[in-house]
């Protein structure tokens, strides 16, 4: 599936309208605060990321990522405190261990892993957050809208048609 996305050609007009939609799962103590810092430091970055705040990256579940794609996200970011810096001492350690598993599972399910960005951003790394968002947006722009999953869902007899939302206008 990943090969298809790479070679996909879109009409230029559609590209103009389309804006990538990225959901970020971040921990409250580090990355959320890092994003706050980017704000207080007035660092300009791309406006396509929607943050969902969780207490700790350890709380992040693979089903969140799948759900996000199902809801029409073109990309997902997952970010927490740096290894060893976790507000909860070890939460991100579990997260880190689990991300390895996430990756395999998602890949197995047929997700293009280039659409998922894992990283560590501390409360002091406003710049890193801004850069990361810019990179993620650039990457997703390159990959184009994530249509494959929607197609898959449409074929899936267990699902209803409703998931083929009109997200490209949003």
């Amino acid at each position, binding site marked *: 599936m990943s090969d298809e996305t790479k070679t996909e050609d879109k009409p230029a007009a559609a590209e103009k309208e389309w804006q990538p939609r990225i959901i970020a799962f971040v921990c409250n103590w580090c990355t959320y605060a890092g994003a706050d810092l980017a704000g207080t430091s007035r660092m300009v970055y791309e406006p396509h990321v929607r943050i969902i705040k969780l207490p700790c990256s350890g*709380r992040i579940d693979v089903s969140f990522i799948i759900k996000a794609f199902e*809801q029409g996200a073109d990309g997902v970011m997952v970010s927490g405190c740096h290894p060893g810096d976790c507000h909860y001492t070890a939460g991100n350690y*579990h997260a880190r261990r689990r991300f390895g598993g996430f990756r395999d599972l998602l890949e197995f399910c047929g997700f293009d892993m280039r659409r998922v960005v894992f990283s560590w951003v501390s409360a002091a790394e406003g710049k890193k957050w801004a850069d990361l968002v810019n990179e993620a947006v650039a990457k997703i722009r390159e990959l184009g809208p994530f249509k494959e999953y929607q197609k898959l869902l449409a074929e899936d007899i267990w699902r209803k048609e409703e998931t083929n939302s009109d997200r490209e206008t949003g």
Partner: protein
Amino acid sequence: MSRIGVFVCHCGENIARMVDVTRVAEETAKLPGVAVSVDYRYMCSDPGQNMIKEAIREHKLDGVVVAACSPQMHEPTFRAAVVEGGLNPYLCEMANIREHCSWVHTDKELATQKAIDLVRIMVEKVGKNQELFPIKVPVTKRALVIGGGIAGIQAALDIASGGHEVVLVEREPSIGGNMARLSETFPTLDCSQCILTPRMVEVDRDPRITLYTYAEVEEVGGFVGNFKVKIRQKAKSVIADLCNGCGDCWNKCPQKKIPSEFDAGLGYRTAIYVPFPQAVPNTPVIDRERCTKFLKDKCGICEKVCTLNAIDYTMEDEIIEVEVGAIVVATGYDLFSVGKDQPNEQWTGYGEYNYDAYPDVIDGIQFERLLSASGPTQGEIRRPSDGKEPKSVVFIACVGSRDPEKGLEYCSKICCMYIAKHAMLYKHKVHDGQPYVFYMDIRAGGKNYEEFVRRAIEEDGVLYIRGRVSKIYKDGEQLVVVGADTLSDSQVQVRADLVVLATAIVPHRDAYELAQKIGFGCGSQGFFSEAHPKLRPVETNTAGIYLAGACQAPKDIPDAVAQAGAAASKVQLLFSSDELEREPIIASVNEATCVHCRNCIRVCPYSAITDKEIKDKKGNLIKMVAEVNEGLCLGCGACVAACPSKSIQLAGFNDEQVFAEITALGSG
């Protein structure tokens, strides 16, 4: 259907400039479940808060979303307002459309769309929120202070005067920290020992303070109000209760050539020793790595000379367990090591300054010891190589500081002042000597500080040369300091008898491990992180743990003492009630579905989950499940993600809530 109120803030122009707030209000008004959506200039102002309160009553709201700044900023404000309006505080959420939106974007249309999405997420979440009630936990009214420098001493004394017990743990054999090593202190030039010693003695005398020196904190468990601490009392080999500090042992100890840590290697101590004469406690310890008895099983002189039989070679380390309600960390600083703390390990680093090669190139603390009346030279300025009185001394500022390539990026803050002090004191002692200072900027921003520096220049004839030094080399007995004077565009060379490097202030060498052990934050430079740089400067992000002194940032004595006082008053504030409230963001187990796989137990970083037996009325075991200890759970949610049967949920962040947030984005 829920009835949610949305309140969109302009923050003056801060939000309104980049986000079409009226449109955000209009669009979100259309969302299912939203009863009212309005925008206002300053939501956090009194009229703004009143709007919310009135709306709750008028529209019978059961949820509130404030679209404004970061929750770190005003969540408490709005939760309080919601409570006054008659709602549970946890039914209020904030959408961050300032830090995460208006301040970082430049396309008004896209920013507005994002703001609408951010509100939508929170509207969906609030719809699923439940009322939560703070958890009450008892408070142990005893404090632990780690580090016995001036900051730790001040904090301990203040808490004790507030009527509470204090446990003070110091790693070295005596309290006093770095201040005890100083000669006289800027800007008043009072003698450091004279003002410090009485405070040290007070610590020793105060019955409310339990002092453990030559000890370290081994483990910290628990949470605010209820910490459980394990302290390792290293074996001193001297029975403190018997010893009267007569000094017979250390006067007779034949191991006399051990470089004294206290004198920064300029003087010597014995194997059984007190670090300095005014030490508190004045009981010696045996340095087992240098003592002949321990190394070769010979000597034993100290035992023989001690008439009080206080020496005990068989003493072992002891673990002491204490329960405390609050912790003040005051572990202070070390000096950057010019020869070694380098980015490139193979290089000597600052090789151009030859600190390692030339004995007459020393650091600031070493110069303090040379100045100190109780130092290795009894306060006479003698250079280490040959004991001569230096007639020309060069002081170099910012060595390792403000030097991102070879040292550290930050300014060490206190060195400008102590350099002026050093140059001045040198001139007071060696009247025909000439002090020179190479500097980049003079940072003297304190009360009477600038005046102090001017005095050094104008009255004591210290020559300030504006420029960094490129190199120090030896020419005969003298050192040649090659520098620049950028004010006259010149290259200058000074022949010096002694060079003093004002090396950077760095966090105590194992500060990072301590922070890890206790569980609070450390910045990238290793100094401990305060909760907010302006508004919560003595608190950490972990409840019940406070900071004092130079462990948080380079600080001089006045600042260290002020912060210690503030930390002490925070502790007393915590101790002013018998119980305290905790955020109810904690996990709970659905016993009906739990299959006791114990995954959650394994991942919980606070060991907050234990096994629980479920028995029938007759006492027969029906099944085993997991159980969360409300006191210990800090709400990280790791267990929730780990549970295969979805039997454990985190209040405020349960699956339903998070899925609602994600789904909110799909409907756009």
